[in-house]
């Protein structure tokens, strides 16, 4: 049977999962951690500790700074050394809490054992509160606070929960290893989310290049179903290998054959998508009282001598991870936080990991340096590759001319910045770089228009 996939575009980069055999190993706690208060989309958290305070692992050190915001917990036990600006991995200043590590003492009530708990409480409100208290954010890349996503706006109804186990980005293997090693926890986490959403059916989407994970999760589901009816209604859907399958809109298209409208949210077509790592974090937060204090990070690259999937405390400096694994490879020119298609290049290795850091990837000049741009030969490969059905060659031109209205008419705002266009362009035109600028202009215009409309509506009301 033909495996499912999304309907438009996509590319097939070599998956390069060279660290797939490396099981997740905990990295020793570094002497100092630097925990940023801006680890999620939305308002940064507000620090509630001051220099000199003693903290334990799992203790809240920053509280949400708004509705769309999240708790930040200390990932270690020790003394707060400073609270202030520190350069993040892009080199920009971000408020960071520096903690000197002393021992490894956890806050009481946190279960750090490996015992699998299968008792899901019935009180959904209490579950949501625990997810919020646990500082759980979407770990698939967007780091959107999970409790907000699990509280659908009034009038919309969730029909299916999709757990994203695609890991379509080349090189990354942390989700794959999590599925293999903590499959039970992930499925229980999925069952918790499913219950909160009103006992909807749940699909775990896994790309077919991970057959072991597919088999293992099917096994786990069968075992859990025997324990409690709460685990029924969860299935696994093998998907064709294709990037960007793990994009939220693409995954919904692949699993449910529904397309989220331009400017719409997944919930508008009845879908909620959560990442594998998020499901695990939900399990930890709800059943083990354990907030997000560590996450698994794939450290990989052909030039990197020690492939690894490390369990790293949040706030560990990147340089400490690199030193732990034998130092910076000679021929690496670029370090990427995340995958090679959508990850961010690291400008500052002294920066620390965040909750959403999924990988550290080392690339050599031959692998990553862009070739000089040449003339567009109008081959249309970018348009074929675009999973949103856009015309990158056209958007590139319009964006360079600064024609914002035309850009909007050609749906520049729908761009998901997956990078397929730039990846496939034989003329090495920096399509996505330029389109991002145009998209930013369009978004600005749309926001300005919405604000003006709102103001006009209010003015009309006041009259």
């Amino acid at each position, binding site marked *: 049977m033909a495996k499912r996939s999304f309907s438009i575009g996509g590319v097939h980069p070599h998956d390069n999962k060279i660290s797939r055999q490396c099981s997740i190993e905990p990295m020793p706690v570094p002497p100092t951690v630097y925990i940023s208060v801006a680890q999620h989309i939305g308002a940064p958290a507000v620090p509630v500790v001051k220099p000199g305070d003693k903290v334990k692992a799992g203790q809240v050190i920053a509280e949400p700074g708004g509705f769309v915001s999240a708790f930040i917990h200390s990932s270690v036990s020790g003394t707060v050394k400073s609270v202030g600006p520190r350069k993040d991995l*892009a080199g920009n200043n971000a408020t960071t809490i520096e903690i000197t590590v002393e021992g490894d003492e956890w806050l009481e009530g946190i279960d750090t054992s490996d015992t699998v708990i299968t008792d899901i409480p019935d009180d959904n409100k209490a579950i949501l509160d625990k997810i919020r208290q646990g500082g759980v954010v979407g770990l698939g890349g967007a780091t959107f606070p999970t409790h907000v996503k699990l509280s659908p706006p009034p009038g919309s109804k969730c029909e299916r929960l999709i757990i994203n186990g695609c890991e379509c980005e080349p090189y990354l293997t942390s989700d794959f290893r999590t599925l293999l090693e903590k499959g039970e926890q992930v499925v229980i986490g999925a069952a918790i989310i499913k219950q909160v959403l009103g006992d909807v059916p749940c699909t775990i989407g896994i790309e077919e290049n991970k057959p072991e994970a597919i088999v293992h999760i099917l096994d786990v589901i069968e075992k859990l179903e025997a324990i409690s009816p709460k685990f029924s209604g969860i299935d696994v859907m093998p998907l064709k290998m294709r990037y960007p399958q793990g994009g939220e809109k693409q995954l919904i298209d692949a699993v449910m054959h529904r397309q989220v409208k331009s400017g719409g949210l997944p919930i508008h077509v009845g879908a909620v998508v959560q990442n594998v790592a998020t499901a695990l974090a939900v399990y930890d937060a709800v059943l083990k009282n354990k907030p997000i204090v560590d996450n698994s990070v794939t450290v990989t690259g052909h030039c990197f001598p020690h492939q690894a999937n490390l369990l790293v405390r949040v706030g560990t400096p990147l340089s400490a991870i690199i030193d732990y694994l034998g130092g910076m490879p000679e021929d690496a020119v670029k370090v990427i936080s995340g995958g090679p298609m959508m990850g961010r290049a690291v400008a500052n290795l002294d920066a620390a990991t965040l909750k959403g850091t999924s990988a550290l990837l080392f690339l050599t000049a031959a692998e990553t340096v862009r070739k000089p741009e040449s003339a567009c030969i109008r081959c249309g490969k970018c348009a074929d590759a675009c999973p949103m059905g856009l015309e990158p060659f056209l958007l590139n031109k319009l964006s360079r001319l600064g024609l914002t209205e035309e850009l909007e008419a050609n749906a520049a705002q729908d761009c998901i910045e997956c990078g397929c266009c730039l990846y496939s362009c034989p003329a090495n035109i920096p399509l996505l770089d330029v389109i991002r*600028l145009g998209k930013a202009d369009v978004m600005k215009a749309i926001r300005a228009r919405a604000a003006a409309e709102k103001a006009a509506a209010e003015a009309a009301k006041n009259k």
Partner: protein
Amino acid sequence: MTSIIIWTIAVTTILGLVLAAVLFLVARSFRVEEDPRIDEVEAVMPGANCGGCGYAGCRAFADAAVKAPNLDNHFCPVGGNETMAKVAAILGFEVKEKAPEVAVVRCNGSCSVRPKVNDYGGFASCRVKATLYSGDTGCAFGCLGCGDCVEACPFGALSMDPETGLPVVDEEKCTACGNCVKTCPKALIELRPKGPRGMRVWVSCRNKDKGPAAKKACGAACIGCGICEKTCRHGAITVTDNLAYIDAAKCKLCRECIAMCPTGAIHESGFPKPLDREATKARILERQKKEREEAAAAAKAAEEAAAKAAAPKTTEDK
């Protein structure tokens, strides 16, 4: 043969006349009534369509100016006072004279003083770079060097100096339209009054990091030490967030701040004579020493006076 020629001429003539009539009628029926003054105003505009006034082009400006109740919010930076006087004459408004302005670049972190810690490998655009990271150097506030401002300038007044890696403003060509100001993602370019005979002084830095961090990132950064603030006798300089700013309206162009600045972050332009830094510095230090002594003496005197004033009081109490 002749008849063919006659026929041809006749047919073409009639066809021409008929089409001319059609064109005439169409032009009349679709004519848009416009205030004729819009054309008049447009005629005196510079015609650069740079958008410096805030409108899409010169015609849009003319249209807005004709409809406006006064010219307070309308100013063509390119044409300046001269053009605005003409516009005001057409529309019967009064116009306030505005001091001519010029763009200044507030970064002097040239390649030699700002060590590179990263290389850039994407589309050469400051805007792209700014969304990605803080820049190739340790300074997160400085010039990114891709020349978006050069591209944005409709008058060719900006160019990148290959030696310093920083943009240079050609004062002759700059019309203060403000396009570069809007373009720079680091907000490094400011429109400042040209000053008397083009003389002006400004802080050529935007680094808000604390002193040591700023200094580490760039040898020419403003470190927020506040010496200039203390030196200035006109209250023109304020330091906020570890960064000094000179209020052009209060600046008396004495250049004492330039002499005192430890990093050379304060720049000058248009002065006929070069500043003798050492001599000025010595003079200022002398003055400050004297002031300190005077202040100390005054304080002592005040103290004594207070003591004296207090002394009789206590005796009175007794």
